[in-house]
């Protein structure tokens, strides 16, 4: 499944970021934004993420997925509408085709939450990095 490939891409991107951080922080959450008008199934992503991060630098990190609804803009009616995925994409008012997608195609890593670990695994802030 392509969620496996997407997860690989996700891990590579996060690893690149992580390796640039001199302190190699502990990543606790990865926030993803996934539009509903993509070929990505959030549950499959979650599953692939758990499998692929096991025993890696991301072991235990949580993947938080925020889904973004499909919103289109009808130029004739000059208003936004929410197409019913799988059923009807044209404007419900005037039946104009869906031409202008305003949201729902997103597929991105929004942000990463992390903290720093000391040698004895206590958490500390980066204001006192070596104490």
């Amino acid at each position, binding site marked *: 499944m*392509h969620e496996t490939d*997407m997860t690989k*891409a996700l891990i590579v*991107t996060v690893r690149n970021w992580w390796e640039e951080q001199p302190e190699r922080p502990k990543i606790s959450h990865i926030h993803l934004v996934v539009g509903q008008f993509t070929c990505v199934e959030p549950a499959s992503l979650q599953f692939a993420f758990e499998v692929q991060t096991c025993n890696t630098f991301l072991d235990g990190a949580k993947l938080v997925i925020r889904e973004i609804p499909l919103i289109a803009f009808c130029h004739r009616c000059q208003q936004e509408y929410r197409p019913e995925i799988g059923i009807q994409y044209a404007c419900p008012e005037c039946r104009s085709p869906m031409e202008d997608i305003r949201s729902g195609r997103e597929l991105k890593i*929004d*942000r*990463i939450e992390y*903290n720093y670990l000391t040698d004895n695994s206590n958490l500390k802030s980066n204001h006192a990095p070596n104490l």
Partner: protein
Amino acid sequence: MHQTFDAALEINLLHANQEGADHNREHFDRWGITCLNVMSSPGAGKTVLLERTLAALSKEFKIAVIEGDMTTELDAERLRKYDVPVIAINTGRSCHLDSKMVAGGIHQLAHQYNPSQLDLILVENVGNLVCPAEFEVGEHAKVALLSVTEGEDKPLKYPVMFQEADCLLIAKVDLAPYLEIDLERIEANVRQINPHVTIIPISAKTGEGLEAWLAWVQSQVRAKRSLALNH
């Protein structure tokens, strides 16, 4: 004290694939090659379409094929009979071609042929209605096939591929009389999500619509050639 930090990344998950696709496209542009990415569900008729296309156009254009297949070389073997370079890419467990695999195919091709002499690269993607739509490979246009045996509702259920298509071939129309299928309904469903797509009903069996398809391919190649000449 436990303090959490935040880093905003805002990086597209497909960023690496997209970069690779742009890179491939730059190569194609430099060589004056048109690249078409042919996609459909398994068995909709991609390879038969390519066979017909090679038979009709390989005198006029220098064509190569990049053939994505999960495990076999069966399709590639069928196309080699037309005496054109065919690069087979076994995608393994991956259900689509990505830009890196196609880059590998281009390199293989460039070892054997001078790419600047090619006019057209036809990419047959892995049979799959879902994933290939999200992974650009460097194509100039996307061709989607939907065979009449698949049902009118497929564009609604798998909208991304049909929304991205530049040309939609409604395939195997010779079978339509035996099925309860409404061709106008298929077109209407596709137009809901992609009003400007070129739609051509075809039958590789009877030859219906092939002329219109070949004319579409010719127009793509000629447009690219005249662009390349002006540079």
